[in-house]
């Protein structure tokens, strides 16, 4: 009677989704819609983290003023240099590291804390649910950016505090998603069977709720990473993220703003990288959502 209990259903459709296979989009050969964005992400990721280790990349800071303002494709500076003589390509790579680290960390925090809180709220119901969700509501009604601004000012702008600031956005979002997913499991037969056989609440959460909510939460994490990359850039852009000499895509865009008409490439180049990364994350998230049949 009970559905087989899935051990790791990360790659299996969520319970009940099988009935709707007819409505799912036809799967394309080789799943190009998954592999192309995934490949782009791997290239960007590897480029940012590995290329500075093995390739001839000049340091991102402390460039000579003599080589300042070089246009794109000049010798030795593939993407040119900025007004203080730093190599732009190198700054893109090191700035990308910051973006990736922040995006991964913020979503990991959101997934663990927010996902956990949401599942607990959805599973326990009653007063626990009410209290947790009211707190989450406060965080959502609170203009997130304000909190982020204030935190990064209060704690002093650096990468670790940017992560904390952005987590105030990711935790409530993940909590809502995982609570909704948990609520949807309430009527399922396997949940009832597990409870009737005396499974303890924490075990219910870990073994039965978590694997079933995971596909939704994991696809959301990909979309969330896209959002995080944009928001991290926004903090940098407002001068409240990664402080100036060290590079990040957001502060490169902000610095380029001053010379927008004279040297637009200073804004355009980091913007393109930001855009491609976010598009790839969104495409991958979308494709996986369609594939796993989660909503």
């Amino acid at each position: 009677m009970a559905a087989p209990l899935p051990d790791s259903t990360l790659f299996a459709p969520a319970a009940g989704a099988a009935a709707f296979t007819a409505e799912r989009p036809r799967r394309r050969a080789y799943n190009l819609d998954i592999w192309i964005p995934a490949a782009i992400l791997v290239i960007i990721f590897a480029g940012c983290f590995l290329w500075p280790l093995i390739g001839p990349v000049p340091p991102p800071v402390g460039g000579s003023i003599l080589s300042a303002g070089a246009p794109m494709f000049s010798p030795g500076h593939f993407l040119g240099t900025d007004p203080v003589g730093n190599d732009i390509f190198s700054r893109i790579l090191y700035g990308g590291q910051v973006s990736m680290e922040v995006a991964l960390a913020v979503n990991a925090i959101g997934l663990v804390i927010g996902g956990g809180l949401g599942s607990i709220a959805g599973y326990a119901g009653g007063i626990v649910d009410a209290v947790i969700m009211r707190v989450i509501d406060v965080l959502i009604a609170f203009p997130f950016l304000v909190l982020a601004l204030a935190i990064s000012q209060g704690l002093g702008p650096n990468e670790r505090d940017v992560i904390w600031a952005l987590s105030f956005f990711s935790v409530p979002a993940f909590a809502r998603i995982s609570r909704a997913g948990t609520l949807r499991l309430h009527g399922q037969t396997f949940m009832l069977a597990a409870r009737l056989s005396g499974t303890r609440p924490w075990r219910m959460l870990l073994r039965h709720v978590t694997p079933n909510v995971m596909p939704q939460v994991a696809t959301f994490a990909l979309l969330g990473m896209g959002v995080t990359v944009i928001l991290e850039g926004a903090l940098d852009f407002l001068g409240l993220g990664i402080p100036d000499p060290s590079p990040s895509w957001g502060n490169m865009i902000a610095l380029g703003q001053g010379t927008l008409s004279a040297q637009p490439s200073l804004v355009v180049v980091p913007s393109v990288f930001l855009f491609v990364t976010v598009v790839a994350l969104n495409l991958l998230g979308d494709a996986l959502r369609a594939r796993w049949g989660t909503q």
Partner: protein
Amino acid sequence: MTAEAGAAAAGPSSHWGPAAPAAGAVLRSPMLRLVGRRLLAAIPVLWGVTLLTFAVMNVLPGDAAQQLLGANATPAEVHALEVKLHLNEPFWVRYGHWLGAAVTGHLGSSIQSGQTVTSTLAQRLPLSIELLAYVFLLTIVISVPLAVLAARKPGGVTDRLSMMLSMGGLSIAPYVLALLLVLVFAVILRVFPAIGYVSPGESIPGNIRSLTLPAISIGFPVACVYTRLLRADIVEQMQSEDYVITARAKGVSQWQILVRHVLRNSVFGLITLIGLNLGTLVGALVIIEPIFSLPGIGQALLQAINSRDIPVAEAVTLVFAVVVVLANLLTDLLYAVLDPRIRYGRPTA
């Protein structure tokens, strides 16, 4: 900002809105009960927001007295001003004072300018509201035609093009879009002003021109999210709803079914979403208004945070929070008004 909204809301059509008011439970005026319950639930949320703002502002290093007197002030001078402004009292006492006054409608006055917060808001809110209204109009004008064109023939050329466009649009950061728009339309083409605000009193075309680039910067990414959701909903309804089959059997043309029947049904899901998303739009004001030097509440908030001006920061976040809470409530009500299945208290499909 935008993709998050998309992900959070990307459900089947029946999950678009928030949960229907306790379906089937109450028949006598479920509407009033809904309003009452939601307003009651909003009180702790709003209170939490004010407390959080106060706490956050309190954590920030330096205070308004230091900011007002500058770096050269002696500690004694700073202390004297702190006493005058009641900044030396414990956190809970200050919060209690503020809350007590706020409940009776007194939001205090700005520590920086001495102007009352109410008049600051009255000065700055109209611009932000006008901008948001422009954004709202823009998102509808962009997303509805795009979604309809795309959904007319799923998988067709128009569909793919509009889906590509919207994927690109929702992935672009508003501040990047703002700078690119300034580069193209203000620096190169010189069609729109790069910065500044012209009030409608001075010149109405000038007013619209000064708000166009900011409105596109905020609205386009959001419109792209809506396009995708609206298209998905239309396609789903066209394939699965009984009334579509009935209409088709009657011989209504495909186009008519789409525009007359399905779109009408889907648009209210969209309206719900727009309401729920108002919070993120309001947040975008904080980034976009300073880029274009628009003296709205977003800019006021940024300045208030930078100068540790607690009364102004409190008031603006409170306004933001009230907007979010009210928008959620209104969309719930609109949802109930527009969807008879909810109005009569029957469970939705």
